[in-house]
């Protein structure tokens, strides 16, 4: 707490050629590619992360699978799969681009020591030597992934050098060019450890701060608040900072609602695909079969082919049961393991049990905590499944994000898909990937890494072509200092007005502001309390309440650096939430049933809405504007 003596921060200014904001999968991919093209070290490259790169981002815990590895598949089939999963509207150029490069990143991971499971007989043989991976699905491969992030981070750190990495600095905002409002040339943030503000000037920047969690009220609200599915530390910084800098966002109406093991949010992929578990309703019925006819209604089946359907549609079939009082939903782990064990030796059964536990221990340890506390052994007792609260992200089974320029070498790409450098946003100098790059979901960990590399190459080219840029900030250092430390100043000014430090008419704590945001989003913008339903009137109410919340964000207080971090995270959450709400309001159809329902427009309406919705934000007026952008099919429908 440093005795509240932290009113006047020291300002550190630094000029670099390329700034990487974030230290996750995309950032580490970028670092790896950038420094190879910069072998003579002519360019100064810096990475800044709010946490420690070794364990920052969504992969902090580890992962039990790499979800995108093409192997024997053609990239065109990968595009078809992503297109189907995301209900038809995707940027096929970006997805194809990821598809053709992603395997190379996986091959690098294996070289750096990531253990990848191999089929019997191929143990010890690397993927590049033809070793066959253990697949849980057409695109996923299993790994021993506890140290996935430290491994990928080590390669990035070695490439960049620790001197060029600044950890524990939270970036608050980008800064546009004084002479060119359509360009970014700076970023401002603060140390969460020391009383310091950091101002970076650059020619190009890669904004890769992941997606957004905790904008909706989570299902657990006590000590368990932290157990969201999505890592609680990614606060929508990517979307908020890009929007404030003037970048066009796309498909921000899209969200991800994973159906997971209840309360612990353990993954279901290996259970369904590898162990062949089935899920059922309270009456023991296979509701997926039973409700399959529902896909004929409202046009929701437009992109279903056989059993292949969008992730949201699986939720749709499950939510129907919950709505009609036929929950809980169970996953029958008992039968699944018993069936597998039938043909196994005791030794093999032990191995199978370990695999089932490892699936959680590698990436959702908390689920094991719940099993241990509730005496659940999966071979003896079934678990429950539950759709979670909504998250915004662009690299998992969701596609919210920033509108990016794509590659120009793929046949048939229209002009509005590539206006600049690959993965550059509509703001010059601002690039993104991973969860930041919109309309191109299903990149996952490997695709985000490969995407960071794709963006990196383009950034080098951009910097070479724009070498004469002299970054001039459109605001003064003093203004930035005041803006970033406003919550501190507010606290110091008013703290003695009341006896109770947290209840004060002059300020709001970041925690209460977050609760208010979550209440608005949950109750009016299709959170869990309405089973993901909203309508125009609810959205109008939300709009008004969010407007006032945004006004009140000026009264956020910070009593220490930790709270300053929470204050700015929550500011980023408000902007992200507002974008989400605006997009849902604009798209008058139900494109993603199972993720959310416009109860006043329940149909999936291809005739009017098979298009992107893009938005821009004016930081001076605080207003959003949305528009339709044409979608183009690049890859033929199969067979």
């Amino acid at each position, binding site marked *: 707490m440093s005795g509240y003596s932290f009113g006047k921060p020291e300002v550190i200014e630094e000029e670099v050629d390329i700034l990487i904001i974030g230290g996750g999968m995309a950032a580490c991919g970028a670092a790896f*590619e950038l420094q*190879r*093209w910069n*072998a003579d070290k002519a360019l100064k490259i810096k990475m800044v992360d709010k*946490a*420690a790169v070794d364990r920052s981002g969504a992969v902090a*815990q580890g992962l039990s699978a790499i979800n995108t590895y093409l192997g024997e598949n*053609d990239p*065109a089939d990968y595009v078809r799969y992503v297109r189907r999963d995301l209900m038809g509207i995707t940027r096929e150029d970006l997805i194809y681009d990821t598809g*053709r*490069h992603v*395997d190379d990143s996986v*091959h*690098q991971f294996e*070289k*750096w*020591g990531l253990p990848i499971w191999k089929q019997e007989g191929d143990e010890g043989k690397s993927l590049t030597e033809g070793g066959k991976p253990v697949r849980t699905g057409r695109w996923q491969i299993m790994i*021993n992934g*506890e140290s996935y992030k430290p*491994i990928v981070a*080590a*390669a990035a750190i*070695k490439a960049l050098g620790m001197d060029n990495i600044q950890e*524990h600095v939270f970036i608050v905002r980008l800064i546009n060019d004084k002479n060119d409002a359509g360009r970014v040339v700076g970023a401002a943030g603060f140390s969460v450890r020391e009383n310091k503000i950091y101002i970076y000037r650059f020619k190009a920047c890669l904004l890769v701060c992941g997606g957004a969690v905790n904008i909706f009220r989570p299902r*657990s609200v*006590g000590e*368990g*608040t*932290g*157990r*969201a599915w999505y*890592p*609680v*530390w990614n606060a929508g910084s990517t979307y908020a900072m890009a929007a404030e800098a003037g970048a066009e966002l796309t498909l921000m109406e899209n969200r991800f609602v994973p159906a997971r093991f209840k*309360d612990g949010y353990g993954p279901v992929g290996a259970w369904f695909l590898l162990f062949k578990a089935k899920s059922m309703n309270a009456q023991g019925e296979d509701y997926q079969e039973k409700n399959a006819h529902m896909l004929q209604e409202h046009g929701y089946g437009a992109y279903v082919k056989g059993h292949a359907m969008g992730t949201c549609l699986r939720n749709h079939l499950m939510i129907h049961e919950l709505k009609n009082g036929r929950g809980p939903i169970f996953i029958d782990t008992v039968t699944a393991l018993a069936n597998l064990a039938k043909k196994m030796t005791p030794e093999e059964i032990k191995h199978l049990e370990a695999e089932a*536990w*490892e699936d959680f*221990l590698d990436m959702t*340890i*908390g689920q094991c*905590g*719940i*099993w*241990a*506390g*509730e*005496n659940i052994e999966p071979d003896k007792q079934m678990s429950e499944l539950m759709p979670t609260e909504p998250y915004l992200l662009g690299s998992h089974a969701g596609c919210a994000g920033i509108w990016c320029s794509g*590659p*120009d070498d*793929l*046949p*048939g790409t229209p002009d509005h898909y590539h206006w600049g450098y690959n993965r550059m946003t509509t703001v010059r100098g601002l690039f993104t990937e991973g969860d930041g790059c919109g309309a191109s979901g299903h990149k996952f960990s490997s695709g985000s890494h490969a995407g960071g590399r*794709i963006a990196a190459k383009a950034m080098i*080219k951009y910097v*070479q072509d724009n070498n004469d840029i002299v970054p001039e900030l459109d605001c003064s250092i003093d203004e930035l200092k005041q803006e970033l430390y406003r919550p501190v100043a507010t606290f110091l000014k008013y703290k003695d007005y009341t006896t109770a430090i947290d209840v004060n008419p002059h300020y709001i704590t970041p925690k209460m502001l977050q609760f208010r945001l979550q209440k608005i989003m949950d109750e009016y913008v299709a959170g869990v309390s309405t089973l993901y339903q909203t309508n125009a009137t609810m959205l109008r109410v939300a709009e008004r309440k969010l407007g006032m919340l945004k006004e009140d964000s000026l009264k956020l207080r910070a009593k220490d650096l*930790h709270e300053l*971090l929470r204050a700015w995270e929550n500011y980023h959450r408000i902007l992200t939430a507002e974008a989400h709400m605006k997009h849902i309001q604009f798209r008058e159809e139900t494109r993603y049933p199972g993720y959310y329902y416009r109860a006043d427009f329940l149909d999936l309406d291809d005739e009017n809405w098979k298009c992107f919705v893009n938005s821009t934000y004016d930081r001076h007026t605080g207003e959003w504007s949305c528009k339709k952008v044409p979608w183009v099919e*690049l*890859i*033929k429908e199969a067979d």
Partner: protein
Amino acid sequence: MPTYVRTDKCDGCQDQKKTVCMHICPHDLMRLDKDGSETGHAKKAYNQEPEQCWECYACVKICPQNAIECRSYADVTPLGGMVQPMRGSDAIVWNIKFRNGNKKRFEFPIRTIAEESIDPYSGTPETIEAELADHSTLFTKGTHSCDFSQFNAS
């Protein structure tokens, strides 16, 4: 499942400037109480915002004193369970204790080569300046084969 720090084990990382748990937590939760004014336990760490803990175990795995453990969130889970890892240089061991006293132990590999020997550029080709604007390849030249006849425009 918030983490807690055991008073009998934490040594404040021997008063180093950088306590390891503080350094590693991705959510800035671990904090060193330098003089005991915050917790009553001087030179020991604590989780300053337990309801924000993702139970990612990054701090648990890295603490040199094995002083950090998790107690599954009290608003969700019955008491008595315990999931505790021991992470070595190439494997991790997990000890699981159920509420009813049952125990399980698992061991998994975490890496195939030592961290120090990761060399990102060994065996990779040099870059070719002319390929900088070529979207079909990254510097490692590992592009997947592509069947362009699958495009509408081909």
